[in-house]
C-alpha cells in the first residue's frame, strides 16, 4: 500500500491543556476528498491548524507523507484583517510565495498565471480593488484564486462555503472537484450535510473524540449523528489529567 498523505498517531490538540481534539488516530490516502463534520466546538478547525503546523499536538503526532509536502490552507474568513490596505491582485499573487519568496519578481509568466487564477474564480477586473471592499463571497473567490496559485498537493479548507450564496459555492465546489480530479488530497471542514453527502466520498465525524471515520454514508448514519450531538461542549474546569493509553 502506498504511504498515506497524512497519518495521525493518537493525536491530542489542546488549548491550555483542555483537549479540543482528543486521541485521534487514522490515515488519509493520497488523492482523498474528505469532509470533516461535527458540532460547533468539536475541534474541526483545530484539527486543520494541527495539520498545517500552526498548532502543535499536546501529545501524539501528525505525519505528512511524501505526497503531501506542499500544503495550502484556507482559514476561516474572519481570521483575515480585511481593513489592511491590500489589493486583490497582491492578495492572490501571494499564492506564488513558494516560488517567488521574499524578493522574487512577478514576471510575465507569473502575471499570466495570476490573471488565469482570477479568471478561474470569476474575479477578472477586480485586480485593483482593495480587499476591504469585497463582499464575503468575492473575498472567498479571491482566496480560492490564491489556493489555485499555491499548486499544493494537500489542500485544507476551513468552512469554505460558509455564508456564501448558492452560485458562488457551486463555482467554488467545481474548483474543489477539479483539484480532486488532479489527484490532490483535500480535507474540508463543512456544515452542510447535503453537500457532504453529494460531493465528498469520505467523512470524519468528530465531536472532540473521533465518532466515525470512513465512507460518507456510513459515517453520517443517524446513530453516529446522535452520538456527536451529545458531546458536552463546555470544558470541565476540574478535569483530571488524561492517562488514557495510546490505542
Amino acid at each position: 500500500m502506498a504511504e498515506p498523505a497524512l497519518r495521525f498517531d493518537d493525536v491530542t490538540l489542546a488549548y491550555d491543556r483542555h483537549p479540543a481534539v482528543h486521541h485521534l488516530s487514522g490515515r488519509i490516502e493520497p488523492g482523498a476528498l474528505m469532509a470533516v463534520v461535527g458540532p460547533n466546538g468539536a475541534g474541526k478547525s483545530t484539527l486543520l491548524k494541527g495539520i498545517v503546523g500552526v498548532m502543535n499536538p499536546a501529545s501524539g503526532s501528525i505525519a505528512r507523507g511524501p505526497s503531501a509536502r506542499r500544503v495550502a490552507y484556507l482559514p476561516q474568513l474572519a481570521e483575515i484583517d480585511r481593513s489592511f490596505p491590500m489589493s486583490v491582485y497582491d492578495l492572490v499573487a501571494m499564492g506564488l510565495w513558494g516560488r517567488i519568496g521574499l524578493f522574487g519578481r512577478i514576471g510575465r509568466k507569473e502575471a499570466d498565471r495570476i490573471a488565469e487564477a482570477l479568471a478561474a474564480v470569476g474575479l477578472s477586473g477586480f485586480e485593483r480593488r482593495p480587499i476591504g471592499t469585497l463582499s464575503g463571497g468575492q473575498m472567498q473567490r479571491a482566496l480560492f484564486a490564491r489556493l489555485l496559485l499555491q499548486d499544493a498537493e494537500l489542500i485544507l479548507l476551513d468552512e469554505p462555503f460558509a455564508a456564501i450564496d448558492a452560485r458562488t459555492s457551486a463555482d467554488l465546489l467545481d474548483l474543489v472537484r477539479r483539484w480532486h480530479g488532479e489527484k490532490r488530497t483535500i480535507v474540508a471542514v463543512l456544515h452542510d450535510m447535503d453537500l457532504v453527502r453529494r460531493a465528498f466520498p469520505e467523512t470524519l465525524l468528530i465531536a472532540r473524540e473521533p465518532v466515525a471515520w470512513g465512507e460518507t454514508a456510513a459515517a453520517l448514519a443517524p446513530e453516529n449523528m446522535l452520538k456527536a450531538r451529545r458531546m458536552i461542549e463546555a470544558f470541565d474546569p476540574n478535569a483530571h489529567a488524561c492517562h488514557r493509553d495510546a490505542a
Partner: protein
Amino acid sequence: MIHDTLIAPFVEFAFMRRALVGALALALGGAPVGVFLMLRRMSLTGDAMAHAILPGAAIGFLVYGLSLPAMTLGGLAAGFAVALLAGLVARVTVLREDASLAAFYLVSLALGVVIVSLKGSNVDLLHVLFGTVLALDDATLYLLASVATVTLAALALIYRPLALECADPNFLRSVSPRAGGIVHLIFLALVVLNLVAGFHALGTLLAVGLMMLPAATARFWSADVTIMTIVAVAVGAVSGYAGLVLSYHAGLPAGPTIILVAGGFYLISLVAGSAGGLARSLWPGRHLEA
C-alpha cells in the same frame, strides 16, 4: 524676501542646518515604521515604548553625564527589554499586550524622571523629555542617519512578509512557519532604533511624533501602502523643515513646533483627506450608477 524667510536661517546658522538634516533623517526612517505600526494597530505601542526608553537613557546619563553612546546604549537596552517583556507577559499571563505595555511605560517614565533628577538639573530633565533638536553634534547626526539607512534597508528586506503578517498571519504561518515571529522581532527592533533616534532630537515625550503623525496623515490620502509610505515621509520632512523655519522666526521651541506642524497636517488631512477624510464622508456627492 522669500530667501530671507525660508532659506537664510539655514545659510546663516550651522545649528539650523544640523537640525534640518536630523529632522529629515528622522522622517526618512521613522515615517515608514509609523505606517506599519498604524497598520498593525500598534500606534499606541510606539508611544508606550518611547517612554520605556527613558530609564535606560537616564542610567546612561547618571553614570556618564550627557554622553551620546551611553544614553543610546541604555535607551536601546531598555527599549528591547520592555518590548520583549511586554510580549512575554502577554503570552504567559492573563494580561493583554496593550495593558502590560501601559503598565511598563508608566513605571519606566516615572523611574526615568527620578533617575535623571538624582543627578541632573531641571534643564537636563527638559533635555531628556523634549530633546535638543537645535544642538545635534556630529556623532548624533551620524547616529540618526545610520538609523534611517538601516531602517529603509531592513524594511525593503522584510516588506513582503511584514505586510502579510499584518493582513493574514495564518497564511504566512502556513507557507513559512517561522517567518512571522522573525519578522515581528525585526520590526520591533526597528521601532526601538527609531525611537532612540527620535529621543535624541525630540525627547522621550515627542519621539513618536515624527513617526505616528505623518503615518496617520498619510492614511487620509491613500489606501495603498507604498503611496502611504511616500506621503508619510514627505509629510515628516516638510514638517521638519517648516517647523524649524517657524520656530526660528517666532522664537518658539524647535522640537514641539516641528510636531505641531505635523499635527497641523494631520488636522487638515482629517478634514480634507481624499481617502476617508471628514469632508468625504459628510459630503460624498451623488451616488454613482454602478
